């Protein structure tokens, strides 16, 4: 009788252990699933239009910074091998509710440095906070101009030299909001407000989007060339690829 009792408890113990191992393994599987991703590069087919040099002589403090290395417009930034920088890549269709409503906890910086916006293009989620910084020895006015009648409000704030950074966010999706400084008319950049994972292509034209497995429509946006889309299926544990090529006008 006693022996039988012990056997019962052993069996219960064993099944408990099995169940818990199973749970742990299942958990791992879920984690692996969340680690799907899309990688790719953005290329320019053809020769990039000439990017005019910027004359900053009206702002000596900035002109001095670029004395040895003059800056050019950044409408199309492409390498000699055709890698296209500053392209916003995001998921335009196929996000689950959770992915779409998630707000990145990153707090990026929109810097005004050497009378240029750094970065030139920034991607954000709706309600994701970012910091506006003036690193220059001159006043700037930061003037984002969202689409009129759209979900976001235009605003225009002065940020004198030495003024503390300020925190701000956009509420509505918009690709993309042009930003300018009226005092230094050559300064311009874009803020793209999109739901879900997003990226801006780097100097090699590469980007990575971290996504759970699923079927998605991925959109790439470039300020001169507009948008391109393609369908991408992401499988668990295996990065999917999505390369984009924009044709030079």
């Amino acid at each position, binding site marked *: 009788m006693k022996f039988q009792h012990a056997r019962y408890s052993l069996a219960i113990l064993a099944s408990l252990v099995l169940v818990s191992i199973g749970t742990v393994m299942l958990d791992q599987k879920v984690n692996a699933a969340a680690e799907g991703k899309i990688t790719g590069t953005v290329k320019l087919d053809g020769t990039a239009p000439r990017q005019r040099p910027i004359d900053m002589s*009206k702002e000596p403090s900035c002109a001095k910074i670029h004395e040895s290395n003059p800056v050019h417009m950044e409408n199309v930034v492409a390498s000699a091998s055709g890698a296209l920088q500053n392209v916003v890549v995001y998921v335009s269709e196929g996000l689950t509710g959770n992915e779409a409503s998630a707000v990145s906890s990153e707090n990026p910086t929109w810097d005004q440095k050497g009378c240029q916006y750094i970065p030139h293009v920034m991607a954000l989620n709706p309600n994701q906070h970012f910091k506006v910084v003036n690193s220059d020895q001159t006043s700037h006015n*930061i*003037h984002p101009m969202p689409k*009129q*009648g759209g979900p976001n409000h*235009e*605003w*225009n704030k002065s940020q004198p030299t030495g003024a503390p950074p300020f925190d701000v966010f956009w509420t509505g999706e918009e690709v993309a909001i042009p930003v300018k400084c*009226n*005092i230094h008319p050559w300064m311009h950049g874009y803020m793209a407000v999109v739901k879900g994972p997003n990226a801006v292509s780097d100097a090699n034209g590469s980007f990575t989007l971290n996504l759970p497995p699923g079927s998605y429509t991925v959109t790439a946006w470039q300020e001169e060339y507009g948008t391109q889309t393609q369908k991408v299926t992401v499988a668990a544990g295996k990065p999917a690829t999505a390369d984009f090529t924009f044709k030079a006008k």
Partner: protein
Amino acid sequence: MRARLICSQWMCVAVVVAVSSLSGAQSTANQENQWMGIESHIGNLTGHAANAKDDYRRYCVGCHGDLGDGQGENAVWLDPKPRDFTIAQFKCRSTPTGTLPTDEDLFNTIARGLDNSNMPPWNTFTKVQRADLVAYIKHFSAKWQTEKPGTPIQIPPEPEVTADRIKAGQVLFKKLECWKCHGVEGRGNGPSADTLTDDLNRPIKPFDFHDGDRFKCGKSNADLYKIFMTGLDGTPMPSFADNVKPDEAWDLVFYLRTLQPMKTKEKEIARQLGLKPIDPNAPNP
């Protein structure tokens, strides 16, 4: 026979015009039905959009248009362009940049008019008429359904003008780089002045303080205070509220008054001080 043919062609044109104008009228009607219930509240006054229909048609429609989109038949001849009420963005506000104005701001703008534009002061209206018109302006944009006006900026009581305040104001004028657009003497001829454009990408001039006190949003010291603290949305004029303390803002108001062509208390003090225009190349104190 030929005359008859021409005649029928004209009739055809007439029909097309009639049909297209009908459809235009219909979209107005839809909009009116949608948000016509909106109210405005100015003190104890309550304005009702529906009551302003006739006044709007009679007095406003020529410039601001049937649909409130600033495309009235006179619009092509005007510069600056009439306000497009469908985007709900206004220059003269007591509220921070990027927010809706209060009902009172719109109420005051109607009565005051906008200097240096074709908007006259509508001071012949009764207060009730104006309140109704404010509600009517608001019925053109969905923004008034989903958003609240911003919280008006703080304006402390106006202090006594002193020489120290005027000097402090001049330091601000240089430090905030007002002169980049408005010029070292406030003549609207700063280094960036020639490149300025408004939201419609039309050239726009910075205010020349030697022109007088016909400021866009009112002549009083408090109006001047509001202009640079809230900014004029839709123009290059930014808000300075983040970097100018409420009390300091009065210093700048007093300094700006020294630039005026007419006799002002501030100008007299500046004369006694022997105040020189700023030197943009000198370091900030």
